[in-house]
């Protein structure tokens, strides 16, 4: 008889969905402050859209400053995934949408490293591996 697989229960996991409209008008500092505020509560943020490259580096800098200064904080795991755009017309439409309504044609997952073990990403999917609690 085949052994029954044990499913480990995850306790107290909170996922915070952040629509792009929540950060659309914010500057980089405010955006990062908002995200880090949630991360430091041990919550996982699912952001509609993605951060700009300079915002991502700022987020990393911020994270590095906090490691060692906040007990138990080990950093973050982050991954973004875009919807697939194959043709030239598709890309043009996306660029136009980006100008008009901002970068919201992507999903970004950011989680505290003490909760999220790893985020595996390939072009088509993101897998979130949580730490056993």
């Amino acid at each position, binding site marked *: 008889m085949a052994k029954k697989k044990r499913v480990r229960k995850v306790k107290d996991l909170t996922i915070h969905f952040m629509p792009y409209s929540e950060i659309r008008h914010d500057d980089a500092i405010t955006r990062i402050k908002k995200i880090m505020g949630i991360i430091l509560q041990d919550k996982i943020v699912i952001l509609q859209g993605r951060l*700009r490259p300079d915002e991502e580096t700022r987020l*990393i800098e911020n994270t590095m*400053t906090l490691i060692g200064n906040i007990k138990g904080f080990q950093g973050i795991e982050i991954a*973004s995934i875009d919807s697939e755009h194959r043709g030239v017309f598709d890309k043009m439409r996306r660029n136009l949408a980006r100008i008009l309504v901002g970068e919201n044609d992507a999903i970004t997952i950011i989680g505290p490293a003490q909760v999220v073990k790893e*985020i595996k990403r390939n072009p088509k999917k993101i897998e979130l591996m949580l730490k056993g609690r």
Partner: protein
Amino acid sequence: MVIKILRNFARRIFSNLFKKKGKIKLGFYGPPNAGKTSLANRLCQDVLGEDLGTVSNVPHETRNVQFKEKVVIEKNRKKIEFKLIDTPGIATKVDFEDFLKFGLKKKEAQARSKEATQGIIEAIKWLDDMDAVIVVLDSTANPYSQVNITIIGNLVARKIPVLIVGNKIDLKKANIKKVQNAFPEYDVIGISAKTGKNMDDFYESLFKLVKKVK
């Protein structure tokens, strides 16, 4: 007054036209343990016969930005002088407990972790000072990591020419095709900094990269 303005304008135009390409600040960026220092060492050994920094299997061995001035590389009678800038690996998390697995004592691991976080901040700050950058990735690892995308995205935003190097192609698990597929818009070259495999192609690509420096 008008003559003075015109004279200054003409001087600026001519000085730009005949400006020589001076020393090129070449940065090595990438995630920890990808082989940035190994590649910088290989380059320095080939040219100067000496290393730039120490390498180790323990992540975050390079925790400060390291330099090597006046590295002159010659190819087809063309000489280019570089200032090599080897940077600490950029990561989004640093846990001192990871270093314990490599036999470090708790205090050593904690100190290393603190230095590593400061090194990452330093590496990011240096992005603005580069003329060209070699992004070194581990070709046995998943290239789609957000750190890789963030580094390359920042270089593109700053209009800094990039060459992506997939290191460790001497290993069985290496998959340079995967790295190339992840970054189809960039020049990607597979090498082994450890064995020197494909270094001729690397130098070829390096000279092409330099041409893009403004």
